[in-house]
């Protein structure tokens, strides 16, 4: 049986005007199970964001086969939603209207839209901030809005591209706990790109390490730590062993 999300030999080369071509993905294979939390780590510029954008349907790969539910990806769809590193909130829309963006484009009537956004505003803990504009929010709050917006369209798959990278360390820790809670509650399949090995281990069922550009999977680590996971788990020997192994796999790929 094919996996829930299955990529085979996905290739993509950027051809920026007036410059040489850049191969971003080459021979990229991936299998993601339904309901799984999969993290992707890899050196900067190895094609992680590119892959998420391909899966989201924003960029068409040059060749290869990428399917979800057995159906090839052909453009954006409401079964997938992305949480962006730089939040990507429309600055001229309030929290509530940002969260309703996807529903609006889906043609959901105002009444329903309002109920849905209210539900997710509560879920991410932003009650009372419905009317605030993005510039009035802290980084952590902005990313909660980003998360709520992605969840509001009820996608099957949540794509997260370094969602917490722009947050300070404490906020990031809190957001990770929140994310696990929400993931358990909403039962989505999550693809999570990060630079932090800790974060990847703490959150994931599996961690995929990518090679340097042009990127493809190098090694996949199952994380068999029991759930629910707590913060203290991060200082256990098992956790640290995993961290070291993943670091070894990753470090050969990093060039500065």
């Amino acid at each position: 049986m094919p996996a829930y999300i299955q990529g085979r030999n996905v290739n993509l080369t950027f051809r920026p005007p007036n410059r040489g071509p850049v191969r971003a993905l080459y021979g990229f294979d991936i299998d993601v199970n339904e309901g799984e939390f999969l993290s992707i780590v890899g050196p900067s510029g190895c094609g992680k964001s590119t892959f998420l954008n391909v899966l989201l349907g924003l960029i068409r790969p040059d060749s290869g086969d990428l399917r979800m539910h057995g159906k090839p990806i052909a453009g954006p769809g409401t079964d997938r939603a992305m949480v962006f590193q730089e939040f990507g909130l429309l600055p001229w829309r309030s929290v509530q209207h940002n969260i309703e963006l996807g529903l609006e484009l889906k043609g959901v009537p105002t009444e329903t839209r309002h109920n849905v956004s209210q539900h997710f505003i509560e879920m991410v803990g932003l009650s009372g901030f419905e009317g605030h504009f993005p510039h009035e929010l802290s980084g952590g709050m902005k990313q909660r809005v980003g998360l709520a917006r992605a969840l509001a369209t009820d996608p099957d798959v949540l794509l997260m591209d370094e969602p917490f990278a722009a947050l300070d360390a404490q906020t990031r820790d809190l957001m990770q706990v929140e994310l696990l809670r929400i993931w358990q509650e909403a039962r989505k399949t999550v693809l999570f790109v990060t630079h932090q090995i800790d974060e990847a281990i703490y959150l994931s069922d599996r961690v995929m390490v990518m090679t340097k550009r042009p990127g493809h999977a190098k090694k996949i680590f199952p994380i068999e730590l029991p759930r629910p996971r707590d913060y203290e788990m991060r200082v256990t020997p098992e956790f640290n062993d995993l961290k070291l192994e993943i670091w070894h796999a990753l470090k050969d790929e990093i060039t500065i």
Partner: protein
Amino acid sequence: MTDQTLPNPAVPADDAVTRETFVERYRKPLLGALAVLLFFIAWQAVFLVVPFNALFISKPNLIFSGLAELVVSGELWADLAVSAVPFLYGFTAAVVVGVTIGIVMGWRVRVGYALDPLMTVFYASPLVALAPLLIVFFGVGVSGKAIIIFLLSIFPFIFNAYAGVRAVDRLLINVVRSLGGKEKDLYLKVIVPSVLPYIVAGARIAVGRGLIGVLVGEFFAASEGIGYAIAKFGDLFALDKMFACILSVMIIAVVLTEGIRWAERSAFPWRVGQ
């Protein structure tokens, strides 16, 4: 379950991908040239269907032969030369006076406070409306036109020089000072390089306004000059020559503004993207 190491396919170099072709690379200028060509062809071709009335419109072939005629007979050069004189006077005066005022306004904070609203009022009012008065007062010769041109083109210099001086980075001044720079070095190494790009950018705007001055002056009352020529050929229904003169003004305007733009890019490459 154990870790899964995956096969590592051999990756061809980036260059193995086909590079962009000539057409891909120069797509923009090629498309632009094509569009211009098509425009002239369509203009010419339209009269195969629509009857041609030479009193109201002309065709590219007639315009180009009209232009050639004006060039060969020397009429065009004569008119352009007549228009160029007041332009040079007015524009030069605008540069000198405008840059001076702007620099003083930027350098002396109180002068800036005092003159900023006044200059804004002048800039916001359509000074070209004074043209009839100036023409009546100074006459239709060089001085009347030069003064209109001066009035219209001085403000971009004032405002840009003003902005340029205010934008000089005080930190850089301190850096040069701390490295033992003298007053002269401050000017040569910090102030002039900071302000000059603003002034040149101002010149680009001022050129257009100066050309308006030339045309207004000459449309009013003149017996020579390129603006006069356009009006005259219009009155005579010599549409081919009228279009030829309009075309030459367009060419001059484009050469001047794009020339300044090019100079900006090559003289101040560090400002690209600002």
